[in-house]
């Protein structure tokens, strides 16, 4: 099963979804996304992943992804296949998927070894002027998982902040799961129908999951927990360290609410809402 997740890049990453995938011991997933910060590293380290189609896998503010390294270099916990992309090429692959095109012709990656390392790409002479171009074939993930500030129960989901490739990925996917900080049936959602990410008809499930993106930020809701990324980097340096991190933060908690309780005061300090009301968590 292929899953596009973390499509806004560094913010709004649905970590709550990835952690539930790890708890349910899903296997042989193909991950699709430009840069999902440490989410891809965690799913790889937990043995859930067979293939990665991405532009970047690591820890954005701390450095290399230790689990990604172990998987590629030593086959721990298992071998994975990598299909290299750049941010632009994966965005175009998802755009092709979104509009039902077989491929998009682009000028990026010409001269890069990525164009040869990814066996799905083809180079051709443009039928218009003969210039070289790279053909990036469509990616149509089985599932796109997006996190947002607010959705109605039908899946009219509004994401404030940068979208990255969220729009293209959600349209390209066969199904979309929305993780919403707030779920509301208020008419305001229908009064601004240009704002939902995709038509709710694309959305198969809406999950009310406050704090779903921690430690990544969600605009207007909570800040990025920078130290959390540094701590993960230090603890995941060895496979044993990673397993104990997972035992503490993923398999050792039943759900996201328990995870947030475990964060405790640290979670309160990340509150970025302009309201001074206590958060409803």
């Amino acid at each position, binding site marked *: 099963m292929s899953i596009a997740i973390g499509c806004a890049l560094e*913010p*709004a990453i649905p970590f709550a979804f990835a952690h539930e995938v790890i708890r349910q011991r899903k296997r042989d997933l193909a991950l699709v996304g430009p840069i999902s910060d440490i989410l891809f590293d965690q799913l790889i380290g937990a043995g859930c992943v067979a293939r990665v189609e991405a532009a970047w896998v690591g820890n954005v503010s701390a450095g290399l992804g230790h689990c990604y390294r172990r998987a590629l270099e030593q086959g721990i916990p298992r071998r994975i296949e990598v299909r290299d992309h750049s941010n632009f090429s994966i*965005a175009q692959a998802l755009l092709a998927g979104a509009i039902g095109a077989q491929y998009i012709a682009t000028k*990026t990656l010409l001269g890069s070894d*990525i164009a040869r390392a990814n066996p799905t790409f083809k180079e051709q002479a443009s039928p218009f002027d003969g210039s070289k*171009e790279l053909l990036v074939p469509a990616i149509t993930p089985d599932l796109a998982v997006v996190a947002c500030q607010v959705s109605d129960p039908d899946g009219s989901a509004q994401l404030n902040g940068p979208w990255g490739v969220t729009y293209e990925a959600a349209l390209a996917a066969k199904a979309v799961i929305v993780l919403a900080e707030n779920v509301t049936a208020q008419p305001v959602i229908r009064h601004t129908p240009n704002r939902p990410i995709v038509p709710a008809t694309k959305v198969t499930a809406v999950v009310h999951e406050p704090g779903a993106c921690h430690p990544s*930020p969600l605009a207007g809701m909570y800040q990025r927990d*920078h130290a959390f990324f540094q701590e993960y980097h230090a603890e995941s340096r060895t496979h044993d360290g990673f397993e104990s991190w997972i035992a503490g933060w993923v398999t050792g908690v039943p759900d996201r609410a328990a995870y947030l309780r475990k964060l405790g005061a640290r979670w309160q300090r990340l509150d970025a809402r302009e309201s001074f009301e206590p958060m409803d968590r």
Partner: protein
Amino acid sequence: MSDVSAGELMVAQAAREIRDGETVFVGMRLPLIAFVVAKRTHAPNAIGLFELGIVRDEPAPELLYTMGDNPNVDGALWCGSMLAVMGMLQRGEVHAGFIGGAEIDRHGNLNTTAIGTDRQHPTVALPGSGGGADIACLAQRLIVIMPHDKRRLREKVDFITSPGFGTGGDWRRRAGIARGGPAVLITTLGVFRFVNGEAVLASHHPTSSVDEIRAKTGWALRVADDVRTTEMPAPDVLRLIRGYDPQGFWTRRGE
């Protein structure tokens, strides 16, 4: 000013590479701070593009750990999809882009994908391109920033993630690359300019020397006739850098 860190020197030099009124693809880490310095000094009309879909005419008011941090979203000129900013890049509307790398060769080809010859079974799996390869292919000019080390400045890189001048000459044109190429390589020891597709040492930092750079460079070093000492950051620039990164999270990393 011996207490100026290599990171601070590199930020100050990177800021000088941004010209007023330019549209710049701002990378991660040190370039984030270089953009702030340029905006607050000689390039107040520069525009910053961030690949996740952010356009800023004012730098974020506080230190960014990633380009997706809330302070980079709030007050942005525009915020939306990656394809919009990548589209500007492919249309040739971006003057300069920043990029770093694990390895570079004398023609400015960068590797951020893998050390070792088998991509699927590398000796070291690096994170990958991100938007680096796109910037290297499509920006009007490329500004490269990286630590100086013999293992990093190599005669030949294991994998060309972000193409520089290939094997030199008209390689980029033959490869079908629309424009651009590396203009400058800023390292922890010195500054190289690209002349006919090849890196030429233009200056060494005050803490280094041509001899040290030769010893720590993996290719036969070419040195400019007028090689000089890299200009130190002006006091106001240093104040800006330290005010923005008071803990030295990016500018004193590993020191």
